[in-house]
């Protein structure tokens, strides 16, 4: 029972980070039909921003603001200098552009900072533990789940209540029809990139509080998981992205915790097992959990 609960909380923690990233990927896919493989780089931007501020005496009290701002700015910047120019090109061209940005980002950090990992300070309370009954939790578990919950509620309110949110959803369904309503293409796309950047910034905060380190290629692994989560949920579906992220997180932690321990290091297979399970899922449901009808036009 204790193990079950702890695994559940672990899974929700990892899963909610995936969910925040997957939501951004789904959002950009919605308005541009781009699977943005450069999205993970926003975590790297957040990490080096933290590193920069920490060597100049930064504190975790205001670091989240810097991380969010840097991720949002970087996201908008990639759209402005790269994606805007290939907006009407084929999805494959868009995909290649995002690969190029990803690799360019790796190279730039390697050249201008260092190929080696740079570490900084974590908040002192992160791994403090507290008990609920017989189960021990880390403070960070609670923070992760709480912050994600609040972020998702804010996201839901933005997309249901504000004109910007309604315009993004409308543009995701039929961009030309949205233009006929007076929605400005540049504004709605920039806005979507800014919002996706903020969500990635929140994810970066949660990641960096646990693992305060910056490394050129650190975004790649998170990106892969986030793309898979978004696809599990059904690309373009916001609810799907959240569900996909949580499912992937839970699947990972549960296979790691419960995979039969037949040999030493057997748990290293857990990621492969997860991917096989997901592949099997796609055989049954090729469109993901929430099928997005208009995504077929891609």
């Amino acid at each position: 029972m204790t193990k079950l609960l702890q695994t559940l909380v672990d899974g929700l923690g990892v899963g909610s980070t995936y969910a925040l990233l997957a939501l951004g990927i789904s959002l950009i896919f919605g308005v541009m039909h781009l699977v943005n493989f450069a999205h993970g780089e926003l975590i790297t931007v957040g990490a080096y921003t933290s590193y920069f501020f920490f060597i100049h005496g930064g504190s975790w009290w205001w670091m989240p603001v810097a991380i969010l701002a840097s991720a949002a700015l970087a996201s908008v910047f990639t759209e402005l200098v790269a994606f805007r120019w290939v907006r009407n090109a084929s999805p494959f061209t868009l995909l290649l552009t995002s690969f190029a940005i990803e690799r360019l980002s790796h190279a730039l950090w390697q050249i201008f900072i260092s190929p080696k990992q740079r570490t900084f300070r974590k908040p002192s309370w992160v791994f403090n533990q507290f008990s609920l009954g017989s189960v021990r939790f880390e403070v960070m578990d609670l923070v992760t789940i709480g912050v994600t919950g609040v972020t998702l509620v804010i996201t839901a309110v933005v997309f249901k209540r504000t004109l910007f949110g309604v315009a993004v959803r409308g543009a995701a369904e039929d961009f030309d029809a949205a233009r006929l309503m007076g929605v400005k293409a540049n504004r709605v796309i920039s806005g979507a990139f800014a919002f996706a950047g903020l969500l990635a910034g929140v994810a970066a905060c949660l990641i960096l509080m646990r693992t305060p380190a910056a490394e050129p290629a650190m975004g790649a692994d998170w990106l892969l998981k986030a793309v898979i989560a978004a696809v599990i949920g059904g690309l373009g579906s916001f609810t799907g992205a959240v569900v996909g992220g949580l499912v992937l997180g839970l699947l990972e932690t549960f296979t790691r915790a419960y995979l039969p321990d037949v040999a030493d290091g057997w748990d290293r297979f857990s990621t492969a097992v997860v991917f096989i399970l997901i592949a099997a899922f796609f055989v049954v449901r090729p469109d993901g959990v929430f099928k997005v009808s208009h995504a077929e036009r891609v």
Partner: protein
Amino acid sequence: MLEVDQLTTRYGAITALHGVSLRVNAGEVVALVGPNGAGKTTLLNTVAGLLRPAEGAVRFNGADITGTEPATLVRRGLALVPEHRRIFKDLTVEENLRLGGATLSASQRRHKVHEMADVFPVLRAKWSTSAGFLSGGEAQQLAVARALMCDPKLLLLDEPTLGLAPTMVDVVFDLIARLRTKGLTMLVVEQNATRALHMADRGYVLRTGHVVADGAGAELAADSRLFESFIGGSAEESGAS
């Protein structure tokens, strides 16, 4: 109010409009009829800014609007109800209307949304329903209401009765008549040619990208020779696509 001058629009190597000219005066209802593939939708989409013409000019209230972004044209008072309605199926009826008022201030938008609820009781009944669940007639009314949100001076309507049940066709024609009494200028593309021409002040017959006839609506409708040679029988028309 609207002047289309020698407009040519191409899709790659295919020319859909060959130097089409027409005008719509303030307060008029003008019908644009012709067989499938005549270029009617291309013309409306080019005027509304969704397509860029290869040659020619479009003037709206005296200003050259050739190749202007749709978002800008909406702000100047030119709205299009596109072919197949293209309402946002994932959004609720209310959200569709709010988006229709994207160019308004928040308070104007709220006011306008309430106004539409009064004008279209059908929509009020489905207020929080996803627009994807509306019937064809309801969806068409939503499409028109959504376009009216921005208080257009000129409304372009592309096949507003396409695919509707006969009673719903009546509802849509009534709606157009009602809008006309309010003084709204309209350019209507219709596959229901006879009825559209009878309703309109003037009409244009378009065929393979050329204007082949124009004149008072009732006169064009009465010209049976014209119908045979240019518009084609309704059976042929529906079979062509």
